[in-house]
């Protein structure tokens, strides 16, 4: 009897092999999606073409993708920092909300400041608010041994309610007929667009912050300590690494980055604070961070891919009347196949010899 046997690879797959696995996983997920479409009576090939065309097929589509990828990227960059230390920050959504709140506070309190002073102030307030929101579960975890997954998740709800409280109450625009939204930001509180495109300068923030995070892990001692602590907590403690402080640091940085995303979204795309700013980027970020194996550059690619998928699915709905839920199905299938594909980078199948 000849059976397949699972064996650990001597060395993990190289870059080329990993790419093959990734491509195969993507192909598999698209095939699965195609099967669902065919079951629903839509031709999979034309659907794929409409999807890709809507996501990446024109300059407008690409701009839309990049626009949508910006907040996802910043949130994902944030959660990836915490995930490196194996601290499971599920709270990017709440930290994003706090960032938007912090930035809005600055924008509404000092509308007269010139752009060059107001935007940095908004960014600083967003980072402070998001960072502190991230720090709370870190302190609870290290001092009271709470589970950070639960605490960060629960704090998301608190953050959204806080945002609601402000836009329904103190910050409500008196001219909005009672609808929940703050007044429009002054011009100096709005991040502008790049040249003749619809893309805002948040893209530049992504590049700089991504580079900083990469450099932090690549070149700094603390960055190395985070990686070491993530690999083995006990060994790290034994080696004298200040583990508690590392946890505080990564959660604060994680929250600050998600908060920055909230700042960019409030300032550049919504131009005010309103409840509909919360569309789940903080949760998408977790998927993106995992798809990208926490690497800053790969996070950029994965963020674009998921943003493209969401933009493309709208096109699919418009042209072929595919239900909105289909986007979620593809997204889930991609995550599942890519994560399952990760198995093949460290293991392989061999044929069991006859006894």
């Amino acid at each position: 009897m000849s059976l397949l046997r699972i064996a650990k690879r001597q060395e993990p797959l190289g870059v080329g092999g990993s790419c093959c696995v990734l491509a195969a996983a993507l192909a598999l997920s698209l095939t699965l999606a195609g099967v669902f479409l065919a079951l629903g009576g839509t031709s999979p090939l034309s659907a794929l073409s409409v999807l890709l065309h809507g996501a990446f097929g024109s300059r407008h589509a690409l701009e839309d993708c990049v626009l949508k990828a910006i907040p996802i990227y910043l949130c994902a960059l944030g959660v990836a920092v915490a995930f490196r230390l194996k601290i499971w920050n599920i709270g990017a959504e709440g930290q994003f909300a706090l960032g938007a709140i912090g930035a809005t506070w600055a924008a509404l309190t000092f509308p007269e400041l010139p752009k060059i002073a107001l935007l940095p102030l908004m960014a600083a307030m967003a980072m402070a608010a998001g960072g502190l929101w991230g720090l709370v579960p870190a302190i609870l975890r290290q001092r009271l041994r709470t589970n950070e997954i639960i605490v960060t998740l629960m704090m998301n709800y608190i953050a959204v309610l806080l945002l609601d409280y402000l836009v329904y109450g103190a910050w409500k625009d008196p001219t909005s007929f009672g609808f929940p939204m703050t007044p429009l930001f002054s011009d100096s509180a709005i991040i502008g667009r790049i040249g003749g495109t619809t893309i805002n300068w948040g893209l530049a923030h992504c590049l700089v912050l991504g580079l900083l995070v990469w450099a932090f892990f690549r070149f700094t001692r603390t960055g190395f300590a985070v990686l070491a602590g993530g690999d083995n907590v006990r060994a790290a403690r034994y080696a004298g690494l200040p583990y508690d402080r590392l946890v505080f640091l990564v959660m604060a940085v994680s929250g600050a980055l998600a908060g920055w995303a909230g700042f960019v979204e409030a300032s550049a795309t919504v131009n005010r604070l309103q409840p509909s700013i919360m569309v789940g980027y903080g949760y998408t970020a977790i998927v993106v961070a995992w798809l990208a194996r926490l690497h800053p550059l790969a996070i950029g690619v994965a963020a674009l891919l998921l943003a493209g998928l969401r933009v493309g699915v709208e096109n699919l709905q418009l042209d072929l009347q595919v239900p909105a839920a289909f986007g979620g199905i593809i997204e889930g299938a991609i995550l599942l196949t890519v994560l399952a594909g990760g198995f093949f980078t460290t293991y392989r199948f061999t044929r069991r010899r006859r006894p």
Partner: protein
Amino acid sequence: MRIVKAVLTLFLALWAGSAVAADKEFKVGFIYVSPVGDAGWSYSHDLGRQAIEALDGVTTSYVEAVPEGPDSERVMTNMARKDFDIVVATSFGYMDPMLKVAKQFPKTVFLHCSGFKTAENMGNFFGRMYQARYLSGMVAGAMTKSNTIGYVAAFPIPEVIRGINAFTLGVRAVNPKATVRVVWTKTWYDPATEKEAGKSLLDVGADVVAQHQDSPGPQEAAQEKGVYSIGYNSDMSAFAPKAHLTAPVWNWKVYYTKVIDEVRKGTWKAGAVWPGMAEGIVDLAPFGPMVPKELQDKVNAEKARIIAGEQKIFVGPIKDQSGAVKLAAGAVASDEELLGMTWFVDGVIGTTK
């Protein structure tokens, strides 16, 4: 990643040319905030869409479950670029994005439901649902035995507050002792939360539950407890046949057919329109078998008065919860006052926060 890119480029090269060619059909695109299968708000609009799809020379399409804010702006822009003649957005939060897009595409007609802003090529429309709410309030007020009526409400915005007030005025018109207890769910479509909210009202003694959300959750709560309910959006009797007294319902078809006709003839003018029961855009769903004949007649008589323009509902004297007179005797509330309503009338138990 390179391989991924290569594959993507290949797909693009294959299909970039096959983009859908523009035809001469009159194209109307709809944007919904929730899935059309929700039996509620988006479903009622989609019934309207299907009605105009059946017209000659009209094709329609829709994108469902579009979050309000930047995402909706992208969807609307996409529709305008694809040469849709009319873009219809059916949620309040689509207003500002639509205004932005309307400025970029002056040749496209934009129609926004439930807001207050207009532009040269952007009109807004809504229906006087409060008229039907008033009638459903009369039914609830007559059917309650505990004199406590529950109202599961979505968000404290003027549309919802206006509905609660009209409902309460209807309740009080037939039963001055009854009160309406309001619970906010802060959701438009969350069957579980809305059902729980309905149960919480039943627990404090309500024996009729009305609602302003898109899921039939509160209807189910009432049916399980063996009490009555008032639906919303569409006839929800299928979800709670024993509980469902009636429901204030939308009939968007009336407006959509009219506006498309106007746009095609070139007679359409941007502006705010607010048709009501007389035009047929709002109505009352058929009464359940438990509603006595006399009550049905009474409500229908009042309905005839609304259609004839004799019953304007928000007519003074109307007091707020604190007892202060908000509308002097004989005064009729202006549309501005109705659209910006942020206070509850006397008889409502709850806060507008």
